[in-house]
């Protein structure tokens, strides 16, 4: 039986070296420490008769430090976290850091494009960039889809639903892209 069980689908492989996991747990600890340090400078109004505005921050930050430290201890003892599962996930695959960096980069680009170029342009860039980062082919199809999607969203949200998305200099004159 046991030999059969081992043939069951592969489970998420935990990171080989838990360095990343320890670093992430330390993020919780450092946020907590930073919070504990700065909480002391929250002003307390003289009229305050209760526990004041500092007590709850101290509790929460203390909890962050304790939980983060606890996770570090657990990981060092070999109890690593169980990565989340999802439908489109290949749990055996290696992390594709390049794709991740591209996606983050395109979101940043999107942020800086919204105001100067308008929302539809920024959205089309984000969509085509993200799809390209995830290996969508061919490129002309990606770009066509993204332009159509951006215009439809601008029309539905900016025009029909009255969400004021800036149409940008290119589409400024087209009435139905505004609310």
């Amino acid at each position: 039986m046991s030999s059969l069980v081992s043939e069951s689908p592969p489970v998420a492989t935990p990171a080989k070296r838990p360095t990343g996991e320890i670093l992430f747990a330390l993020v919780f600890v450092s946020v907590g420490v930073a919070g504990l340090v700065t909480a002391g400078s929250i002003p307390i109004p003289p009229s305050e008769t209760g526990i004041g505005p500092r007590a709850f921050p101290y509790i929460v930050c203390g909890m962050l430090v304790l939980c983060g430290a606890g996770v570090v201890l657990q990981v060092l003892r070999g109890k690593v976290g169980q990565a989340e599962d999802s439908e489109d996930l290949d749990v055996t695959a290696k992390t594709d850091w390049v794709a991740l960096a591209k996606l983050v980069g395109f979101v940043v680009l999107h942020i800086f494009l919204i105001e100067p170029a308008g929302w539809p342009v920024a959205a089309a860039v984000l969509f085509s960039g993200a799809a390209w980062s995830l290996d969508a082919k061919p490129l002309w199809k990606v770009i066509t889809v993204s332009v159509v999607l951006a215009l439809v969203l601008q029309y539905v949200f900016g025009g029909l639903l009255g969400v004021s998305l800036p149409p940008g200099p290119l589409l400024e004159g087209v009435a139905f892209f505004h609310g």
Partner: protein
Amino acid sequence: MLLLEGFSTALQPVYLLYALGGVFVGTAVGVLPGIGPAMTVALLMPITYALDPAAALIVFAGIYYGGMYGGSTTSILLNTPGESSSIVTALEGNKMAKAGRGAAALATAAIGSFIAGTIATVLLTFLAPVVADFAVGLGPVDYVALMVVAFLTVGALLGASVLRGLASLALGLFIGLIGIDDSTAQQRFTFDNPTLVDGVDMVLVAVGLFALGEALYVASKLRHGPVELIPVSKGKNAWLSKEDWKRSWKPWLRGTFIGFPIGTVPAGGADVSTFLSYAAERKLAKGANKAQFGKGAIEGVAGPEAANNAAAAGVLVPLLTLGIPTTATAAMMLTAFQRYQIQPGPLLFENQGALVWTLIASLYVGNLMLLVLNLPLVGLWVKILQIPRPYLYAGILVFAALGAFSVNFSPSDVGILLVVGILGYFMRRYGYPVAPMVVAMILGPMFEVQLRRSLQLSQNDPTALFSSPFALVVYVSMALIFAASWWLRRRQAAVEAAPVREQVSV
């Protein structure tokens, strides 16, 4: 009588159209793989920004039920079940689909959801005003007790790792602290940054964690190649047979009465109820039917699906009457309500009775529409499931960015979204549940206000927190819930291990 007034609003043709739209969009988005109900509500929030409150609530009622149902369609039809919330449906539903009975599985899920949703909404209709009447008499000490229970169940019980759940909870509480203190108007953790003075908007955190975090996480390990779908067979044999009806109706009812009570207490909402219902059906099945468990038993789809929907209605009881969200989806609903200056709580039924009853009436309507829409539209959902993954995740990114931008029409909010999204990525990667963070962020500020009020009333005597009989009852039940969950967890591990073994040994 008030309900009838609600119906008279909800049944106006325009509002019926809104309800239809909400159910349709909710299901369509919920069907998308990787998108759970909480993420559906978070992603679809912008579509209601320009609507009047009644219309927005009606749309949300539709999205709420549609998103729930959409998830189960995914787990029945997609070859790779994943999300924990629908894992129980996947256990049997996926096997049924592989055996060519996908249409029957979808039908028993749809009809079961409808029956359970309707019964549960009736229960909600009668229970909510009673609870609200009772809740008017609750003091700050009692609220502190209720919220402690909500925190601990969401943070400690639901994930695989207690410490990581509590860490996620603490981080949510911390983000909730950023901004101006409600009681003294002092700035806390704003570091003199003007964008932080108003606090971090809930929508940014939720969309960042659920949508952006999930998209980044899936992108990092995307399954390449064609999407494996199980074809839905058509024809006479595919539909529910007399035998199927006979085997389904009891699980539907049992699921309803398991799901609703679990939804109403802060003990984990839908997930726990589906598991309990599955375990019950497995135990009650006899003979040949019992042997089918693990290979596609219809009871194993009918019961949990009903329980899931009944719990979804049950969750609305504490949400509407106490203002306490007990699941991430409920936290999202509360955020949506607050955008329209609707503050759920004991006074909601008095102050905004017309709106609440419209909401409840539209739950009935939405439920019926779900049934009417879903059976004929299965083909469309299958098409949606086949969207090439690069386009799907690119689309999720665009929608997340749209949602974040339209909160205040400020590009820097999209920056906050990105930071939270990266955080969400690492939380998934290292096994931290994100739901506690979302719930804590919304409950934290309310909790602090009540805690400080209780302590002020008692001149800072902490024993006062245990002085009210109601609070004591709550704490004792919490201890019982923890004991029960410890027992359940062991059972769940056993049940989840069992079907895998059977499948392999065949």
